[in-house]
């Protein structure tokens, strides 16, 4: 097949996107397209604009798995091709001694993004632990992870549910001048992935984010295959060289620091799993979300057309 003119990758500033950035930077897909570019999306509005079909602007887009299902159920033409992020949710706390969800009973926990996936996961887990999320915790919702971090650092709050790379950024900040002078250390406390495994009696991982194919890529299984390989390679590269990956990402994304990204790469739970293989776990995950907040996945479980399966 002829070379494509342009290939557009897109993703949020989170772990799923690091391989995408590496792919663009290293020229991994040079043989496929003349230009390969990375377009970040920062909020749901931008995502919506990128996701409208027919425009064919974006080919591969990284997003949380539930958002992909949501868009699919709303009629956007996309297919999930892989899941790479299996756990980025942590409780960050000033108190070293808190080990499990139960330990946080009666405490005020900052929660960015009300009714979004992390909130629902937290509630589900709390429920399984026999706790009422509304009664046994004092959940304080804030607008963005940034606000939560600011409140933590300003000692206005002691615990927060954060995701990578915000966790690493916050931890780095509190150890570095001048912040650490005032704010005592924060700790990476409960790992929600572990709790997921413990309380739901499953593997200790949650299929949180991955890549969806759209536009011209949808009709081109070869392109998807090529992308999958490159992505898996880049993911491996990042895992192997956190420092280099951090430098690379921070160069492109002003908002992240190299150390923060590196820490985040070390901490997060990545594994390249093609969508059809992840399907059972995804369906379980979606079912949990649907039970509490159907709107998160667009009201229903996505049908089979959602999961990309390579032709054997």
């Amino acid at each position, binding site marked *: 097949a002829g070379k494509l003119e342009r290939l557009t990758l897109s993703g949020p500033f989170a772990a799923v996107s690091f391989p995408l950035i590496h792919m663009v930077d290293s020229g991994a897909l040079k043989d496929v397209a003349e230009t390969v570019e990375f377009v970040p999306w920062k909020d749901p509005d931008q995502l919506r604009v990128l996701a*409208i079909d027919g425009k064919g602007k974006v080919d591969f887009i990284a997003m949380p798995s539930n958002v992909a299902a*949501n868009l699919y159920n709303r*009629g*956007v033409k996309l297919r999930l091709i892989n899941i790479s992020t299996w756990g980025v949710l942590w409780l960050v706390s000033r108190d070293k001694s808190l080990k499990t969800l139960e330990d946080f009973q009666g405490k005020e926990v900052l929660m960015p993004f009300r*009714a979004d996936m992390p909130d629902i996961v937290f509630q589900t887990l709390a429920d399984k632990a026999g706790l009422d999320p509304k009664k046994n915790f004092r959940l304080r919702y804030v607008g963005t992870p940034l606000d939560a971090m600011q409140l933590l650092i*300003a000692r*206005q709050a002691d615990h927060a549910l954060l995701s990578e790379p915000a966790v690493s950024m916050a931890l780095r900040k509190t150890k570095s001048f001048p912040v650490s002078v005032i704010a005592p250390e924060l700790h990476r406390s409960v790992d929600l992935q572990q709790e997921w495994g413990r309380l739901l009696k499953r593997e200790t991982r949650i299929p949180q984010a991955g890549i969806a194919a759209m536009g011209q890529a949808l009709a081109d299984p070869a392109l998807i295959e090529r992308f999958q390989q490159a992505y898996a390679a880049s993911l491996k590269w990042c895992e192997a060289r956190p420092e280099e990956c951090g430098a690379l990402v921070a160069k492109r994304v002003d908002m992240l620091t190299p150390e923060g990204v590196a820490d985040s790469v070390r901490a997060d739970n990545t594994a390249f799993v093609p969508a059809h293989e992840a399907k059972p776990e995804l369906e379980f995950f979606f079912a949990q979300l649907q039970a509490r907040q159907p709107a998160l996945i*667009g009201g229903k479980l996505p049908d089979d057309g959602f999961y990309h399966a390579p032709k054997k």
Partner: protein
Amino acid sequence: MTLLRAWLTGIPAYLWSGWGAIASLFLLLAAWEGASAVHGALILPDPGTVFATLAGLVDSGAAWPELAVTARRAATGLALAIAAGSTLGMLAGISMTASMMSRPLVTVLLGTPPIAWLVLAMLWFGASDGTPVFTVFIACFPVIFVGALQGTRTLDGHLREVATVYRLPLRMKLFDLYLPHVVSYLFPAWITALGTSWKVVVMAELLSSADGVGAALAVSRSHLDTAATLAWIAAVVLTLLTVEYLLLEPVKRELEGWRRQETEGGAA
């Protein structure tokens, strides 16, 4: 009392003259429908869907509590801004020095992005109503202040001389001399502030709060539920239109009655 009476008696005549307003709202709906057809439902659902969603929200009882919370915050912030802005603005208008001193502060208030306040507001007011109320106040106060200031300074010097000669006490100067004139400057400021207050309170809730329309908006936004998002926005705008046309306009008509008659007499 007079205001209340005026409010009640003003309504029928008012509704009658409101056809133009309604017509233009329908034009707006038509434009929306058109844009929706072009862009598709994910970007911009059509008005029918949105109003159906809104009706659903209202029926399920989900809408009223959120609207009430938001309205309370907007109204509190607005009331504070109107009281402080009108009074301080008029006082600053009477004294040249006060006006010189207050102007740059107003500019600073006007031009500082809310980001700068938000952290402080969260610190001072925590998760209470304080933060959105404060944000509304900060956003509306300068608008009203500037209007009151300008209105006071443009009062006809001849009438000011009358006040001097007839030795009006400060209270009368404010209420019998300045206010009736300044009101014509305050009204556009109040209308602007009313609109601003709703917009700002929603944005502030969106950023910082657990309840209210803004929070609901944030949720539906993160769920990519465009119809619900627009339904909430429609609810806000409809409330705003109601407040403006049922409350502010009749009051305006009453307070500016002398002016209306003047125009009619002059041009009839």
